């Protein structure tokens, strides 16, 4: 099974190197991969239906509890068949639809990778690997949306969708790790078997926030739905495959998969019902205001996803059954409608419904496919959609006190969806062909019209033979509900309230379709209203965020060294000062002050004077001389405290420094006072605070007992063991000889550096 999942990635690798061989007519050979996989997974159907889930385990990063555990149960099976089945249709369709595209090999590479990621996602039993594949689908989606990479719109749409789904990905990562941390395992099976009750954990709400957030971004629930219509920038096969049939259902899959673990709690159910309800109405309502075929389909997809979330929120067995059936229903008819829209676009060069009509006589097979899909979408008997809609009403009616409102919402949504399906699937084919199109309609090859026709016919077949759907879904319902659930799907239920609702839906839908005409005016109206939508909110806040980022970055990296130094100083003063204040009791033993001699006082006065002159002198040379005085004064202090050798060294260094400085400064232009009084004052305050801090610190350090173990050892053994008479020398060249060697190296490197600074003038041609 691992190979079956990974073959998509392998195929993509093959395409990187051999992709150019598979162009033109040969491109259809790419479809071997999904077709083969479909057959492979279909062969598992009897086993899964009769014997239950198939588990496969492969070791991976076991030390982190992450293994490649695959679980082909009823729920995965439905998704797997959808992914490979619709994938096969899309792969075939693409070979003709994208004919002549410069980078067809890349396109197939992305599609294969997507298929593999999606398979991995629905088959993974390990929560972390679910996340792994989840992210991969987002990334591939990014590349597919941006396929026409030179168009700015495509790039923007790709970035927006990656932004939203990426945010969801982060939430999912947080969610799965938290679940693993609470439940003690990342394996969904183990979590189910361990009987851990998440809703009793203190982190439950946080888990819900993470997981539901992830599902909502991926499955385009309000208010994160806006990336999906933008994603329609992608070529139509991508919209069909990723953005309607499979990838956007990943969030739904996640909710279904985790329902047994996280569900059955009011916070879970109510959140899903509320957002699902809003989304289904919002999406369906928006279809009224669109004229672009793909745009209409995008919003109706959003609405359908809303219905699914809503059903999962209801959480009863009926609702799960309805959701699972509806997933299949929707995948079939929506994929058909997208492929139909693509075919229309391909043949006529436009997707604008206002410019389309009467295409039936030019492309009968496509028209049939569109009609069948629209019928299924409308939920008219005997289509598969009819079964789905009945089950939805059955589920909403069983919700108790709120049943009326909930059912009403479902009915309204379905009415609007019927309208959308008719506009997309029937309207382009009926009526009169606009004159400007008459000569332009191109003939379509069977490779284009066959896939939508097959899918369209399936919409009917699944409806005529309800047992297909029934037996496919049975183990899935069991997996989601957590226990066996007995049900029977029939086309004819007899006269009851559900049939009445169905009738109302279809009748009102027809009325709506004939009353309301799509128009440019409506599109413009909606564009104006969109000003207050989540999309513009996101755009505005990202602009605002960018502004803040710029301000923040400019503030902390202004480009001036002085501000950088100030930042460090203030940080030191703040943090060290705080710790010094909190953690220590700095005090001064005034009794010891008496020991200060007259000479010492004098030296210190000279030092203070030197500092004063150095700071306030208007001349560089005077300031330098004052610094020299300061240095000498320090030497004298060394002498007072019995370190004449140190004093001599310091004396030499100070003299040399002053001389060198004089040589350099002499050549500089006249001293200019560049800083104003305010910044000088600021610098003064910082300098004095820092000095004060160090003084306090030294006072504190001096109050501590001294450990002389090391120096005692050195003094004792310098002659005995190291055979040297001068302890300092022995320390430098023997005890700590490596330090000295390395410091000498520092000097050598500096010398090299100075030499290159002085001598090297780069040729212009060498500048990188």
């Amino acid at each position, binding site marked *: 099974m691992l190979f079956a999942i990974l073959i998509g990635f392998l195929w993509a690798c093959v395409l990187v190197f051999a992709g150019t061989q598979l162009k033109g007519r040969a491109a259809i050979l790419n479809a071997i991969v999904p077709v083969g996989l479909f057959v492979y997974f279909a062969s598992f159907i009897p086993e899964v239906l009769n014997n239950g889930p198939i588990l496969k385990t492969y070791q991976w990063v076991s030390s982190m509890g992450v293994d490649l555990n695959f679980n082909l149960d009823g729920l995965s099976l439905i998704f797997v068949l959808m992914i490979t089945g619709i994938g096969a249709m899309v792969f075939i369709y693409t070979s003709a639809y994208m004919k002549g595209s410069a980078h067809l090999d890349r396109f197939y590479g992305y599609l294969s990778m997507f298929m593999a990621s999606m398979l991995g996602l629905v088959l993974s039993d390990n929560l972390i690997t679910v996340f792994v594949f989840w992210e991969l689908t987002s990334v591939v989606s990014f590349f597919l949306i941006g396929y026409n*990479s030179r168009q700015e719109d495509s790039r923007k749409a790709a970035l927006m969708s990656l*932004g939203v789904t990426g945010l969801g990905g982060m939430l999912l990562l947080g969610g799965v*790790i938290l679940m693993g941390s609470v439940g003690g395992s990342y394996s969904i099976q183990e979590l189910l078997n361990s009987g851990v009750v998440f809703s009793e954990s203190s982190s439950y709400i946080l888990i819900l926030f993470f997981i539901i957030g992830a599902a909502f971004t991926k499955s385009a629930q309000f208010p994160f739905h806006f990336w999906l219509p933008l994603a329609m920038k992608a070529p139509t096969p991508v919209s069909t495959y990723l953005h309607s049939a499979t990838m956007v259902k990943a969030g739904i899959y996640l909710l279904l998969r985790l329902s047994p673990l996280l569900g059955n709690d009011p916070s879970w159910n109510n959140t899903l019902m509320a957002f699902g309800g809003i989304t289904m109405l919002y999406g369906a309502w928006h279809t009224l205001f669109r004229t672009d075929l793909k745009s209409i389909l995008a919003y109706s997809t959003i609405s359908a996803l809303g219905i699914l979330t809503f059903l999962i929120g209801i959480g009863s067995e009926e609702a799960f059954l309805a959701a699972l059936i509806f997933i299949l229903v929707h995948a079939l008819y929506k994929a058909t409608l997208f492929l139909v829209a693509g075919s229309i676009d391909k043949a006529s060069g436009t997707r604008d419904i206002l410019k389309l009509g009467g295409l039936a006589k030019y492309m009968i097979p496509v028209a049939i496919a569109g009609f069948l899909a629209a019928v299924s979408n409308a939920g008219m008997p005997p289509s598969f959609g009819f079964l789905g809609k009945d089950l939805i009403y059955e589920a909403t009616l069983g919700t108790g006190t709120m049943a009326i409102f909930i059912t009403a919402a479902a009915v309204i949504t379905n009415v609007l969806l019927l309208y959308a399906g008719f506009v997309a699937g029937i309207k382009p084919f009926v009526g009169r062909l606009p004159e400007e199109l008459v000569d332009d309609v191109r003939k379509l090859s069977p490779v284009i019209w066959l896939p939508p026709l097959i899918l369209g016919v399936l919409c009917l077949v699944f409806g005529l033979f309800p047992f297909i759907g029934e037996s496919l879904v049975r183990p899935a319902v069991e997996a989601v509900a957590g226990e066996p659930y007995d049900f029977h799907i029939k086309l004819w239920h007899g006269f009851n309230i559900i049939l009445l609702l169905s009738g109302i839906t279809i009748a009102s839908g027809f009325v709506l379709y004939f009353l309301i005409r799509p128009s440019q005016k409506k599109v413009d109206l909606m564009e104006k209203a969109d000003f207050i939508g989540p999309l513009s909110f996101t755009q505005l806040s990202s602009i605002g965020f960018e502004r803040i980022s710029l301000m923040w970055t400019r503030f902390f990296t202004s480009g001036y060294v002085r501000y950088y130094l100030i930042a460090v100083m203030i940080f030191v003063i703040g943090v060290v000062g705080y710790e010094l204040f909190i953690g220590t009791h700095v005090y001064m033993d005034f009794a010891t002050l008496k020991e200060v001699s007259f000479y010492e006082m004098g030296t210190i006065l000279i030092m203070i004077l030197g500092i004063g002159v150095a700071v306030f002198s208007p001349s560089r040379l005077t300031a330098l001389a004052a610094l020299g005085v300061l240095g000498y004064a320090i030497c004298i202090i060394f002498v007072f405290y019995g370190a004449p050798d140190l004093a001599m060294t310091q004396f030499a260094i100070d003299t040399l420094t002053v001389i060198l400085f004089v040589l350099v400064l002499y050549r500089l232009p006249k001293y200019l006072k560049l800083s104003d009084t305010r910044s000088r004052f600021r610098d003064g305050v910082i300098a004095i605070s820092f000095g004060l801090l160090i003084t306090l610190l030294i006072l504190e350090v001096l109050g*501590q007992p001294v450990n002389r173990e090391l120096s005692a050892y050195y003094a004792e053994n310098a002659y005995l063991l190291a055979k040297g008479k001068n302890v300092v020398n022995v320390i430098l060249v023997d005890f700590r000889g490596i330090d000295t060697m390395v410091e000498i190296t520092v000097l050598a490197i500096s010398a090299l550096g100075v030499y290159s600074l002085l001598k090297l003038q780069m040729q212009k041609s060498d500048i990188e």
Partner: protein
Amino acid sequence: MTQLILLPILFQACLAVLLLFFYTKTKTQKVLSIAGSSVNLVIASLLFYTVWVNGSMSVQAGNWSAPFGITFVADTLAVTMVLLTAIVGFAVSVFSAFTIARDRLRFGYFSILHFLLMGLAGSFLTGDIFNLYVWFEIILISSFVLLTIGSEKKQLEGAVKYFALNMLASIMFLTALGILYGLTGTLNMADLSGKVAALENRGLVNVCALFFFIGFGIKAALFPLYAWLPDSYHAPPTAVTAIFSGLLTKVAVYALIRVFSVVFVVDEFFSQLFIILAVITIFSGGIGALVQTNIRKFFSYLIICHIGYMIIGLGLFNEIALAGMVFYLIHDVVIKTNLFLISGVIVKIKGTSDMRKLGDIYNDYPKLALLFALSLFSLIGIPPLSGFWPKVSLILGGMEADNYLTVGFILFGSFITLVVVAKLWAQVFWKSSANLEEHEDFSYFNKLRKRRKVAILFPVVFLTLVTLYIGFGAESVNTLATRIAGELINVQPYIDTVMGK
């Protein structure tokens, strides 16, 4: 056997000196440097293998027993860093040989590069805190020279900022050393461990630790001490920035890890300080990258951003978070070096580093784009590539400590990295590039001979393979990281190794 510990240092020292003898013979230098780096890779692997199998070992310089002399210690963390240095050093050595201008090579470039690598190896292996300071001096001065070599205006401008702030960091480090020596009378880190723990004046110990933290914090580019980094890293040739970005901030992180595991303890105060600064670092770096237009400055801000992850790990200081931190460190060294090499190739292709003008890489060089994408994805942490795994551990560590602030910011950091890298991709790879005027004297990538192209891409491919291994072989890297985390939590074996018990 224990002499092996010194070999990575001594070998680089000899190589650097040997290169000085061929000061103007650039061809010989190239051959020597690449050959030497390959040998060094073998040495480092050998050392790593020995320690992995036999456990930590130490050697006393001049045979003066600890704590009186200077001890070199090879524990698992140290040899891992040495191995990474060898890997990165090898890649940069090759890249330098084929991209650095002749003029720079004639002024001791390779020699100083190997001195820098020596300094890094020394810092990782030393067990003496003053000796660590000295190695930091080597790193500072050789990086300064590498930064200025060529004396272009932007180089010097960057170098001033680099040197000023890093010198200040060294002063802080030295101040801390002074206080510590005054309090304990010893410089050996293992010896310090017990002596510092025995000190009664905890406030003063904390102040001392703070100075270490500030010193290393500047060098590691933590908020609010990071400003020097983006102002200097774009200036030198790519190969130089590559080695800087891979190792210089990381050696400071290493020093922080070492000092705050062996010498000091991460108590409540430091834990909070680390975490707060780390999350602001992640934030600052991420949003800094968002507003950049120069591709190298862009990556520079991402260096800052990701330093935050490691400091979070240090702040949480539980085993799982530390394992995540070490894993991230390993990942970061390789990936950051590679990113700058990649930026170098991009600049070589287009002749500009301005992201507004760049473009078309995806359409003109699809296979290169794929190669680069692997690294960019690893950087973001697209699972299952290398940046992903440590984040899982870090998040778990944060949850274990009930610190959801860290969890939130780790996720935020990942998200912002994702967004900015996607933006980079759209700008540099997807977009059509502006009409760039052709510089006559610039050696464009497509004008190079095939052999040279391959040679320039070789280090990128090499590092990408290492990154892929870190991602797909996460099991072995995680085992290593977990072992190191264990050693950081229980330092007694380290102390015993040094003190020869």
